[in-house]
């Protein structure tokens, strides 16, 4: 019938939600900030994975990066905590409710400086958390001091040169047994979108060290964390795909020309090596790769290390399946007979 059109129903994901249901508040970061690019990919990933916002918690420490949870998925609980301590807050959250999806957003100062102690112990415990480091090599909120990830010899806006070695958070993560370690560049949105999804589907701790330039304090010549430097020096290791179980091509994804890694939830990560055939299941190779590129000044991006078999924290400590926050008095308080037994043993 001419003249009539059926309005196109809004696009929804498998949770029946539209993209706008994943929206956050308006970003108050500087225009052009790398962090906003990451925020957009996190929204994409959560939408694509059909994660119910109510089942997601967002956690952060202090700094520009740590403000970003306000800018995505306002329907999710969020905890903007104190500087460098997000890992412990996340750990406690998982103890109270192991069913929650958790995403933690941190920065280079929040992780590699003040938060180093908690960061390394987080990896020991293999908490089920996607840990994003928005790495720009400087403190933004306090106006541009070096952080511990700033490369030796890199320059501040006003000319000061960093005399100290950088801490390579990816190398540290691999060394400490983290099972999902990726280095990304905020400017490479295609790779980010796939890897953020894969990290969120991964059961265990996923560390994403994302070069996310600070357009205000660290985007000048002489900086090794600027947009121009990262664009020129990014070396994409892989073409990465994320294939959930319901994907029509799921069954076709088989090991062959590309590596296919099946995660605990059934979804698959496809990793097609580009110019360099890096085996991300090889920890030693991963460490060598990072060391080599560190020497050359290039930024290798992709999945550096992947081990899908590490037991998760909540399983290592043999916690029950019911979230502890759901337990009622009948479970929380042992019987009178138990107290009597203890009292008898003490009398």
């Amino acid at each position, binding site marked *: 019938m001419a003249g009539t059109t059926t309005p196109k129903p809004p696009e929804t994901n498998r949770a029946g939600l539209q993209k706008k249901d994943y929206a956050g508040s308006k970003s108050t970061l500087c225009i052009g900030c790398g962090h906003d690019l990451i925020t957009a990919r996190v929204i994409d990933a959560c939408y694509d994975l059909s994660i*119910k*916002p*109510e*089942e997601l*918690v967002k*956690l952060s420490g202090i700094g520009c990066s740590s403000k970003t*949870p*306000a800018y995505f998925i*306002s*329907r*999710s*609980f*969020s*905890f*903007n*905590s*104190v500087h460098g*301590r997000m*890992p*412990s*807050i*996340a*750990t*406690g*959250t*998982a*103890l*109270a*409710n192991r*069913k*929650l999806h958790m995403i933690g957003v941190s920065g280079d100062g929040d992780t590699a400086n003040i938060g180093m*102690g*908690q960061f390394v*112990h987080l990896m020991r*415990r293999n908490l089920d958390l996607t840990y994003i480091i928005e790495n720009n090599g400087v403190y933004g909120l306090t106006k541009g001091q070096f952080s511990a990830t700033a490369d030796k010899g890199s320059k501040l806006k006003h000319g000061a040169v960093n005399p100290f070695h950088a801490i390579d958070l990816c190398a540290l993560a691999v060394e400490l047994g983290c099972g999902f370690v990726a280095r990304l560049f905020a400017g490479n949105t295609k790779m980010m979108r796939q890897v953020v999804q894969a990290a969120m589907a991964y059961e265990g701790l996923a560390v994403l060290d994302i070069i996310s330039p600070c357009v205000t304090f660290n985007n000048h010549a002489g900086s090794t964390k600027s947009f121009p430097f990262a664009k020129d020096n990014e070396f994409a290791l892989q073409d990465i795909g994320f294939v959930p179980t319901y994907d029509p091509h799921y069954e076709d994804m088989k090991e062959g020309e590309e590596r296919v890694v099946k995660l605990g939830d059934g979804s698959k990560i496809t990793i097609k090596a580009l110019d360099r055939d890096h085996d991300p299941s090889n920890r030693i190779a991963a460490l060598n790769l990072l060391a080599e590129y560190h020497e050359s000044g290039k930024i290798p991006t992709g999945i550096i290390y992947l081990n899908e078999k590490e037991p998760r924290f909540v399983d290592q*400590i*043999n*916690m*029950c*399946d*019911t*979230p*502890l*926050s*759901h*337990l009622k*008095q009948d*479970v*929380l*308080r*042992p019987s*009178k007979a*138990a*107290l*009597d037994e*203890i*009292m008898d043993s*003490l*009398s």
Partner: protein
Amino acid sequence: MGSAGVSNTETKTIVNDLVLHVATANGSGSQTSNMVLLRALFGMGIPVSGKNLFPSNIQGLPTWFTIRANGNGWIARKQDADIVVCMNSETSDEDIETAREGAVLIYEESLNLADKRPDCVHYSIPFKKMIADVCPDMRLRKLVINMLYVGVCAQLFGLDMDEIRKALGVQLAGKQKAIDINQPALEHAYKWAEENLKKIDPFRVERMNENEGKIIIEGNAAAALGLLFGGVSVMTWYPITPSSSLCEYLEEYLNKYRMKDGKKTFAVVQAEDEISAVGMLAGAGWAGARAFTSTSGPGISLMNEIIGLAYFAEIPFVICNVARTGPSTGLPTRTMQGDVLSLFYASHGDTKHVVVIPSTPKEAFEMAGEALNLAEELQTPVFILSDLDLGMNYWTSERFEYPTDPIRHGKILDKAALEKLGGKWGRYEDVDGDGIPYRTIPGTDHPKAAYFTRGTGHTPQATYSEKPEHWKSNMDRLTRKFETAKTMVPKPEIIEEGHAAGILYFGTTQEAIREALATLDKKHALKLDQCRLRAFPFTQEVEDFLNKHERVYVVELNRDGQMRMALDAELPRFSSKLRGIHHYDGMPLTANFVVESIINKEEDI
């Protein structure tokens, strides 16, 4: 061999009134021997306490254990010992100086103490020779030798050997091999004393019936039980003396009583430091668990930033501070009431915290469970202020009563409640006028359940704000909440008969103060009314007590009078009435110190 020294057989027998001081080297197994003596006295129905004075060391340094048995129920620490057992050659010269005039000295014969302290009764015992006879294994002799003084003491002072044997069985329960090694030594020493020692001292114990239905327990175990039955679900911790045993007890109890289908209905995490331990509590409390950690002063110092976050973001959890002597590393194995102010006002900015203060194991049990309820109801960190004396020493106590009150979680909006409200609510809105807002728990299945938790300024709707009016009204609401807390925390224990002077105290000084008040009454005809604080904020009863009395002695175990300062700060109009009595050498309070301090101050009036 045998008894020597002064002969004073004509001295009147002293029944059920002794302070027994045992000096050994730590790591030598003497704890078992001392506990056997303590349990045997307890089994004989005599009021008794045991205080362990130990070094910050694992093996080899001097350690002392003091048992006080007293038929009148005075079981506080007493300065001078009636009986000193010297097993440590390194310290014996000093150890015998702790004996009062006319006391009993029991020592290894090779120690050459015979010429010293001629005022005392000496029993020189060939412990080393004896142990060679009863313990063929050379390696074990160093440990088992301590069982010999148990046998000698039992014989000399009339401890019931059946109680001694029973106590050994309890102390070494499940370790038959250890019992088989220790028991012969014990029996041998008893028999040896019977045959070789002539009793020339006045001390004797006799059976009483004061411990019917009672238990022996350390405060740390008591608090752990309180948390277990209070429904704790997450415990994080970082080891620190004197708090560690609380966490170890709790983990042991949880492993035994909170398993379901082979899985844990709780979580225990040993954190990498105290900052992480309290961070985990903040996450767990926020996400709906009943979360707990225990620490001591240095840990509280480290936790300060997150304590402030939890106060301001209104997150429930419980921290027990088993206080030790500070500042700094201080005396890690000695006691102090030195963290009063650092708990009451922990963290930067305007903060005030709810603190419960147990005096006894029974209160530690009750208050620990209640602290979990208060934390959830008030949505704030709640502290238990304990100390080394309560936590790590052995106390007789009434049996603990099973809690019959339901576990309380406070104001939580679940899915149904949110639906009823049409999703309209504000995390920091004071709906009820009591300063306590409503909260939702992460994971609540409602599109309006979520809110943004932050340590930055916020509106009643939990959105970010730097506006002066938002900041101030939120701080005022937190003050209202603290006022509400006054009506919920444990009230002080007040004993008053209208006297002009009062005494105000808290925690483990109770036993010494009870004894001191009896002495002041009997020997100095001075009577005081008592107020034993059991919580911060100070309740109306505390204000009334201060109001009613001309002068109030505030007794505490710290140099600066921290509780007095808090009273000054919170109830300034009574400042001029407060007189501080401060004991701060790391040791528990004695009645004598209180009596002397008060008499001196009364003379100044």
